């Protein structure tokens, strides 16, 4: 036991379950960056790196939300529609003269309501998460469309310029605010997942729901919490898209549920639940961003980009399946066997 305590930091790092996959994917990311920088000299330009990071940030944020849900063994398909709903509600309110802070607050409340609804449907009423969130996905998209009578909104105007700066255009210490928002959310939710009782409960529910229940974990509350986190992240991304466009667009957040799952799955979040590190989602979102950006630089058509990302998602999930099936079933307790042997002879 003492030997285990004195392991070097690298071994300790690798002992964390899921870290191996994160490091593998991180090496993949590094290789991608090297390849793209060789193919295009402007890939590493200061401007492109800034844009790339800003491009990655929204994917990272929804990836975090989806990662929370995936770790509990569920899925949130409504995340993209909530992005659209958040964008449309905030923009509509702002263009109709509602003060920006109030508009943001109302948007947040509505999005969190969708999260609670998802959680209640899945946890309390036992609706399969795929179906429950498919339903709320359609509802949320419908709300996004109906909120401004099936039209995109007008420009949100100069009064809301501070909002646009806060969420997208502004920068602090040389980094765009979008990146700062993603960073803060990552730090907060990573801490919540890794260092708190709630985090342990989230892993427990995903790993063995029945055992978690018997251990006194409120599995329903935990499930609701992860869906609320997911909706909160989607809400923030909706606000970012609104800030980018300066208006509400009904189809914003389209396909984001796919990007979210991709970011989480590529980063080693197990789609079976109970396993995964949030830092993996950072790597997953980065791979997604680098691929999008890099393939654009080398002139690959959108179709090729989608195919490449799709293949990477499948390979990541396949890797997870292979790792799980090859995991040693039981530790051979040579020590205990030796003790027993001593007793025997």
């Amino acid at each position: 036991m003492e030997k285990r305590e004195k392991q070097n930091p690298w071994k300790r790092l690798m002992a964390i379950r899921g870290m191996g996959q994160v490091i593998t994917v991180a090496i993949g990311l590094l290789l991608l960056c090297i390849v793209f920088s060789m193919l295009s000299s402007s890939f590493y330009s200061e401007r492109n790196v800034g844009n790339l990071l800003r491009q990655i940030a929204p994917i990272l944020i929804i990836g975090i939300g989806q990662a929370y849900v995936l770790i509990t063994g569920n899925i949130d398909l409504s995340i993209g529609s909530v992005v659209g709903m958040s964008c449309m509600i905030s923009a509509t309110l702002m263009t109709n003269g509602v003060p920006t802070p109030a508009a943001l607050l109302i948007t947040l409340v509505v999005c969190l309501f969708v999260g609670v609804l998802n959680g209640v449907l899945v946890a309390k009423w036992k609706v399969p998460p795929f179906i429950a969130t498919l339903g709320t996905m359609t509802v949320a998209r419908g709300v996004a469309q109906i909120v401004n009578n099936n039209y995109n909104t007008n420009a949100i105007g100069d009064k809301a310029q501070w909002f646009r700066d806060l969420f997208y255009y502004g920068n602090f210490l040389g980094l765009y605010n979008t990146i700062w928002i993603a960073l803060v959310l990552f730090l907060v939710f990573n801490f919540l997942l890794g260092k708190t009782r709630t985090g342990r409960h989230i892993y427990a529910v995903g790993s063995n729901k029945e055992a978690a229940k018997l251990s006194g974990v409120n599995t329903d509350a935990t499930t609701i919490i992860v869906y609320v986190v997911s909706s909160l992240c989607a809400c923030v991304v909706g606000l970012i898209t609104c800030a980018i466009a300066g208006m509400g667009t009904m189809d914003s957040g389209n396909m984001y549920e796919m990007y979210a799952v991709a970011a989480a799955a590529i980063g080693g979040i197990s789609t079976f639940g109970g396993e995964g590190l949030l830092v993996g989602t950072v790597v997953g979102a980065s791979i997604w961003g680098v691929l999008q950006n890099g393939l654009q630089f080398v002139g690959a058509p959108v179709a090729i980009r989608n195919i490449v990302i799709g293949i990477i998602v499948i390979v990541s999930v396949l890797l997870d399946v292979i790792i799980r099936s090859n995991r040693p079933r039981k530790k051979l307790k040579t020590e205990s066997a030796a003790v027993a042997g001593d007793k025997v002879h």
Partner: protein
Amino acid sequence: MKNEILRMEHVTTIRNEMTMLDNFSIHIFEGEIMGLVCINENGKESLIELISRNVPIHYGRVYFNESLVNNYQHSTMTMNKAAVIEQKSRLIEDLTVADNVFVLRRGFRKYWIHPRVLNDQLRRFTAKAGISLGGGELAADLSAFDRCAVELLRAVVMGARLIVIRDISNAVSAVDLARFHDLLRYYCKKGFSFLYICNHHEEAFRICTRISIMRDGKILKVFDKPDFSENSMAPYYARSYADVTPKEFPPLGKDPVLSFRAVSTANLNNVDFSIPRGQCTVLFDTDSTSLPDIEGLMKGDLRVRTGEIQVCGKPFPQAKARRGIANGVVFIEENPVQSMIFPQLTYLKNLCFLIGEKKDPVPLSRRILKSVVQEYEPLVGPDIHETNLSNLRLRSLYNLVYCRVHLCNPALAFCVNPFAGADMDLRCRVIELIDLLKKRGITVVIASVNIADSLVIADRLILLEKGGVAGDYPRSDFPRLRSWGIIPYRKINKNK
């Protein structure tokens, strides 16, 4: 005077119009290991539920820690300070030992988790109890014994006044069972109380201070330690192994059906044995290291590192093992009712399922089905016409599983812990069913971590230890082994 931790007075519980506990009375003192030997399964589940939680009862009173917590007039539905340790682990595999022991328990108040602090706390507990466990180890990586030890530690940490140990010998090997008993004795001295539920009185004799015999949810008798003897227990069994032990063991064929030739894997080291046609062999794994690999090899989940496996004289590589039925090998899994029956199919379709999977599948024409009914109705009774399997009793479902193999007529039937979780009556039936397979000439291998029941039907015992063959005993040696009880290996080695 000792505190009374649990007192149940004349408790009767009725679920779905069936009496589960019938005028059930028991009392357990502080620092006592009370045994509960169940002649049949009836009432066991209800009792455990009632100890854990104050669910409504039909009649009687329940006192926990000397206060009335449940009676026929009012049930609070609250949880008692009791923990249950059973074969089905309640640990969260993806979390560490420290998290499982400290964080995932009722009453853990801290919100911020400090792994180092938790590991230090755990070290103090494990050092006192003499367990070698690291707080940072993942629960998924633990051996069966370590899992039980962690569950016990968790129960101790959460302050459980009563810990129910249920059929634990199904989960841990004989060596580990002895170690686990030592742990129970340690915590018993510390004032913790245990209800040790098992199906074998021999097992209860070793660890318990008193033993209650339960049948059909009713306590028949309570024995104090001086009364622990085979003779005192005999009247309480409706059937005994003497009733089902085959009268004659037919001579065996000479050609080997299953051969392991110097087989090595991660946990096996040069395992070498050969099982002739028609023989029933028990593979008894004393330390739970060899059997998982042997099962993995036979199912095709694992690949042989060195050596060779042969079935019916032909090599049995991983690809063939994956299509075991087509190559003459059929598995009967542990708890086969859960794992081997298709509840949506009729009895007859379940019965005929394997013959459609054989190398030369038999087309299930109406004539064939009629013939199957004619052949098996005398064995299984009118159940063969049942279309809804949920109407059948456990015994009938066991009949179905074994008769399906009988009908398939493979060269080798590999049974994994066939007696796990079965009551005395069902164990007797399983022995009869295995005998049925033997009479058909099917070679039977029983993979087990507990040989108490398997020796009744076996022709041979192969002892596996530390990944190798430690002993090979013919049936003529069994009386000697049985007299040593369920942990024969110590005395075997001493006498060698």
